[in-house]
């Protein structure tokens, strides 16, 4: 039996999309980029701005490793087109510490060993920063639910919750 894969379906005239100007503020610094519309905010950060602290774990909004803050809100940067963020202010893991002093969450993650391989960690910390800003989580149960968009395959969840509680000033 012979079968043809669905790959390589006929496509009319392959031309690449035109690159467009994108102005975003990243960690307080105004950046001007020219990007094709298909470039996600995640790839813009990693490949075009050299900010590889933001991680690609699934590229489909299923793991949370790419979490950054856009205008103060946590989002999955893998599902955001960079051109649509024109004019936005983006905070990544590289922008959380100030003057060499770690953000309270960063220090708490170290203190509580809230990571192992470290790959989900920038996303966890940015997500937790978003969580703190939202102010919707008080109890451990609420933290767990509202941090469930960040998968940690090493299984550091109890330590992540403890670290967030420390940063919230809870015992």
């Amino acid at each position: 039996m012979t079968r043809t894969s669905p790959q390589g379906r006929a496509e009319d005239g392959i031309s690449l999309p035109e690159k467009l100007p994108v102005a975003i503020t990243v960690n307080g610094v105004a950046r001007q980029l020219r990007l094709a519309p298909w470039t996600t905010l995640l790839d813009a950060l990693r490949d075009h701005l050299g900010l590889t602290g933001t991680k690609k774990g699934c590229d489909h909004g299923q793991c949370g490793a790419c979490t950054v803050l856009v205008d103060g809100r946590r989002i999955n940067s893998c599902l955001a087109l960079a051109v649509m963020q024109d004019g936005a202010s983006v905070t990544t893991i590289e922008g959380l510490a100030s003057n060499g002093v770690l953000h309270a969450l960063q220090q708490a993650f170290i203190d509580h060993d809230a990571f192992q391989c470290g790959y989900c960690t920038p996303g966890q910390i940015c997500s937790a920063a978003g969580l703190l800003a939202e102010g919707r989580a008080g109890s451990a149960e609420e933290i767990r639910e509202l941090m469930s968009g960040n998968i940690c395959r090493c299984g550091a969840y109890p330590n992540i919750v403890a670290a967030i509680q420390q940063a919230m000033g809870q015992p």
Partner: protein
Amino acid sequence: MIGFQYSRAQDVADAVRQIAAEPSAKFIAGGTNLIDLMKQDVERPSRLIDISRLPLRSVEETASGGLRIGALVPNADLAYHPLIAQRYPMLASSILAGASAQLRNMASTGGNLLQRTRCYYFYDTATPCNKRVPGSGCSAIAGLNRMHAILGTSESCIATHPSDMCVALVALDATVHVAGPAGARVIAFADFHRLPGDEPQRDTTLQDGEIVTAVELPERGFSAHYTYLKIRDRLSYAFALVSVAAGLELEGDRIKDARLALGGVAHKPWRDPTAETALRGQPASQATFASAATILLRDAKGYEHNRFKIDLARRAIVRALTQAAAGTPQLQSSKKIA
């Protein structure tokens, strides 16, 4: 992902004009489902028309005592909006049951309505799927169908609609405001999504070139006796096996009015007025709830891996109505079932 063009819509009329000029284009707002599907080569729009900057972000009270929710209101903002939390807590709860905090920050109200199914075969371009390639066949019927529909299926498709929010919206008698080449119109929520029939490629009754501009809620929010109960394979961040939106109005221990809708069981959020009729005027008892469940599920049909959903849905309906009647709605952060 194909190489698409990108443009911004200046206003709703411009959005409608742009898509009329290029029918293979798509609107993009939150993008959480569309970009995912474009990376899978399931969606292949020639152009994305960015509607995210249109002024459709307000939640306003209507003259008839309801609320009009702009199509671009993010899911998170809607869930935490004071008027929603106060008057339509069932809707707030359903939104918080879905996705993750990050996705709820991105996803829009209109986009939530237009989510596509999570059927494995729809996502995998190496397998036949009538929804993706009409006429190619349904792989799920004889394949892996644990997540699939038990109600309103067809020989062409047994996919489910993945939204949680829409289950509450159909229960609340919401309406969908759309604009299009032929002007604006209003669609009853129950008529917005469709059953697969022999055209499973069509998820909704939107006409070509139409854009969702708002969702309107009528006055009654069932805020005293409601719940949204979602059953899934892990305790968060998973699609529903079965979910139940329930709202009751009680007079003493009698049910004066009832709303009941299911998610995760059909190609659309499933609501059946006859089940609600069966609840009205009856005592708020387990027997009443069970008979409503029986009516709601009377045409349910299971497949190899999802037969359990019929009984699970029955139990979940009874439990949800019990929660609603008792005034102990399910809290989405609590994993113990109330």
